[in-house]
């Protein structure tokens, strides 16, 4: 018996060793279960999850236990004679009624939690969250703060095909952004979710759930984080090529620090109230390169140098995912090249039109609502003069404004 035990222990150890050997690094963790999270709801969800899991395990022990006994005892090789019984209304009723009782017992706490989950009243802050292919946009409705949140540059470099960068060397690989959503601890934060293009889903496991962001509709989701910290998640609904590369990061700050953050980030030129009225169509500060447009009071004159410089950064964050860093596009996925393309070397008007309004029925979004005139002018200028393109055209913010 002990002999058998040692043999099996040896085998299991060898198998485990094999699995470890397959792994270039043992730095990753073997996380087995759902996190408990940091909100009241996520704790309830966790408890429900463990409860239903426990129920399943109990039923499994009974059913699989009987099956295993049967498989080992009632076999022909042991000389078993088959019994002849073939039905019993009594047991059928028993094993119909017992599961119903278990299910009702399960449904009650689940419904209870669900009712609380859906109660978005009495929130302290509201943030409008808009999904874009492939980034999130956050707008603090009462504060006049809004910005885009992109995959951070380091992850973005490492995640390119054959980048040669080991993901294990990148902090929070694919779970880090340039500008996280910042909220105060203990406040009930209500998110109003919508989308600019396709359906996305906003998910932070530590907050106990996710909600879809659907174009043309507004969904509500709320959370109240009990502990300060940085919480990470991802888009959960397939939204195209870079679905795997639009993380959600939420920084929960102590109240005083949050107030300081608000003060630092509130646009200087407008009081919250007036700002809100103007917020709708104003595509001013996009934060795409984490640069608050409002913070630079007097921009230097528009020049080729300046346009190319800004354009390069903006291109990397807004265009390179599809059109590729070298402008060669991705023919296999239907993303056209810009290097030497008829659009980027042809008439300027047409180029601006596509950049501002997009191409309907394709993945090419109109960037008019996402970027400012200056940013778009920089991008278009860059595209017309980078790589092998050599048009010498300098597009000005006024050109863009005229095309809107």
């Amino acid at each position, binding site marked *: 018996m002990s002999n058998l035990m040692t043999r099996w222990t040896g085998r299991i150890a060898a198998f485990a060793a094999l699995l470890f050997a397959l792994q270039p690094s043992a730095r990753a963790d073997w996380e087995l279960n759902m996190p408990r999270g940091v909100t009241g709801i996520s704790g309830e969800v966790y408890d429900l999850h463990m409860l239903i899991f426990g129920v399943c395990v109990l039923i499994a022990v009974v059913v699989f236990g009987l099956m295993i006994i*049967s498989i080992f005892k009632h076999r022909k090789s042991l000389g078993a004679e088959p019994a002849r019984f073939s039905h019993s209304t009594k047991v059928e009723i028993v094993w119909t009624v017992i599961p119903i009782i278990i299910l009702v017992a399960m449904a009650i706490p689940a419904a209870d939690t669900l009712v609380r989950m859906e109660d978005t009243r009495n929130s302290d802050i509201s943030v409008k969250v808009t999904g874009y292919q492939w980034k999130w946009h956050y707008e603090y409705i009462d504060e006049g703060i809004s910005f885009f949140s992109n995959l951070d540059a380091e992850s973005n470099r490492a995640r390119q095909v054959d*980048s040669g960068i080991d993901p294990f060397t990148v902090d929070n690989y694919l779970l880090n952004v340039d500008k996280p959503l910042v909220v105060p601890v203990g406040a009930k934060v209500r998110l109003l979710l919508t989308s600019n293009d396709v359906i996305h889903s906003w998910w932070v496991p530590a907050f106990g759930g996710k909600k879809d962001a659907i174009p043309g509709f507004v969904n509500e989701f709320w959370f109240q984080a009990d502990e300060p910290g940085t919480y990470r998640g*991802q888009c959960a609904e397939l939204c195209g090529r870079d679905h795997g590369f639009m993380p959600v990061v939420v920084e929960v700050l102590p109240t005083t620090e949050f107030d300081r953050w608000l003060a630092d980030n509130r646009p200087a030129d407008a009081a919250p109230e007036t700002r809100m009225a103007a917020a709708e169509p104003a595509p001013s500060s996009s934060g795409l390169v984490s640069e608050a447009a409002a913070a630079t009071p007097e921009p230097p004159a528009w020049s080729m140098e300046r346009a190319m410089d800004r354009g390069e950064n903006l291109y990397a964050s807004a265009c390179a995912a599809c059109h590729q860093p070298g402008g060669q596009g991705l023919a296999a996925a239907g993303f056209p090249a810009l290097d030497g393309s008829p659009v980027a070397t042809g008439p300027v008007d047409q180029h601006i039109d596509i950049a501002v309004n997009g191409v309907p029925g394709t993945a090419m979004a109109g960037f008019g609502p996402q970027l400012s005139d200056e940013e778009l002018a920089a991008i278009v200028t860059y595209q017309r003069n980078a790589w092998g393109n050599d048009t010498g055209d300098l597009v000005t913010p006024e050109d863009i404004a005229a095309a809107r």
Partner: protein
Amino acid sequence: MTTATHTEHHAPEPTGLRRWLTTTNHKDIGSLYLMFSLLMFFVGGAMAMVIRAELFQPGLQLVDPGFFNQMTTMHALIMIFGAVMPAFVGLANWMVPLMIGAPDMALPRLNNWSFWILPFAFTLLLSTLFMPGGAPAGGWTMYPPLVLQTGDAFPFLIFSVHLMGLSSIMGAINIIVTIMNMRAPGMTLLKMPLFVWTWLITAYLLILVMPVLAGAVTMLLTDKYFGTAFFTAAGGGDPVMFQHIFWFFGHPEVYIMILPAFGIISEIIPTFARKPLFGYNAMVYATASIAFLSFIVWAHHMFTVGMPLAGQLFFMFATMLIAVPTGVKVFNWVATMWRGAMTFETPMLFALAFVFLFTIGGFSGLMLAIVPADMQYHDSYFVVAHFHYVLVPGAVFAIMAGVYYWLPKWTGHMYDEKMGKLHFWLSAISVNLTFFPMHFVGLAGMPRRIPDYATQFADFNAVASVGAFIFGFSQLLFAYNIWRCARGGAKATSQVWEGAHGLEWTVPSPAPHHTFDTPPVVK
């Protein structure tokens, strides 16, 4: 009653390619369906290998994310519509007439068309891989607005889905008509083998939901090309409406892929336990209840879209209710084994693995029904683990069990039992190695349909990939075993299995081209 073959009545049949193109014989068509399904199983499997190879470690090593999405989309479409469904239709074609004592299907020419549509449908679908912009990449669920971004492949996707739907509806009509009208004298409805019963109910599901899918994809087509706005918010439509419609089709579709599997398992377990099926009537009623419930639970696939609270509660309760008839089935199988005299040939091994592993998939399904918890599980790898447990060691294992069970009847030879057992053990172990770790990464927060992942998910993904490769390559044994068995081997008797009962075991092995020209009489 033994042989019922009167070959002299039949005109000489064409041979070679013409035989297969023009055949109206249920056995030939059944074989065609099964061979087609096996081919598609390997095509879809190759795509799964691409997916698992890319996911073996974090970082993008092999494919572009766009191509990765094409692979996940095509893998699902091919496995569902090309491998699992045709396999069940093939088994129905072969076995339903034999089980009810009919000479053939009721509408033999329709039968021929419903098969021969499929190669065209899948040629259309697979051709998109070579188009500019590539194959559809918006997921098999085809959610707008994403699917409307598909390039040249879009109309091909829509028309191939139409063709698959047409084929399924024709096949379903044929099966219902056959079962309702062609039963041998004395074969009352409640004497029919359970495989026939489950297929009868499945066929009704097909007729009710395939037109809905066809309608939904037609609307996608008009939305993209003809300026309608069924699913475009800007034009007054609703993208979520598509999801409701899709899952109104999609949930019964799930049962279309599992009810015939229940039927197969209900044939195999009594044979190898040498004991009649426990609770036959309860099994029939349970199947019917599952089919009915499948129509009122669709929205449990979309708890995160922002439904009203009342809707979420209703769909949660209805979904949990499905566990009851499903549980009844599992309990009945266990009771069938209880105090039997079991032997463990390959079909029985697959059937037992089905009961264990399908039940695990059922448990995770019950967990997914709990709406608050589903807010975490939804669109994570936990869901991937769940539906692969019900589809691979569920539906696919049942098909394999059925193939090993009836192969001697079809070919007249016994398959290689040793190789069959090897195939079973490799499959059963590797399928768990592949899909069990997916529960863990899903719970830890890994979303589905992503080509690359954060480093904390690396270990279990590596395990899953290793399992997937073992599973994939083990299936070559299956194909080889079938091929060998078709060409020769130990002669099979009429009854093949010691404990087998039913009309199909009264005809010789291999089953002659024409059987039951004179109907048998069932007492």
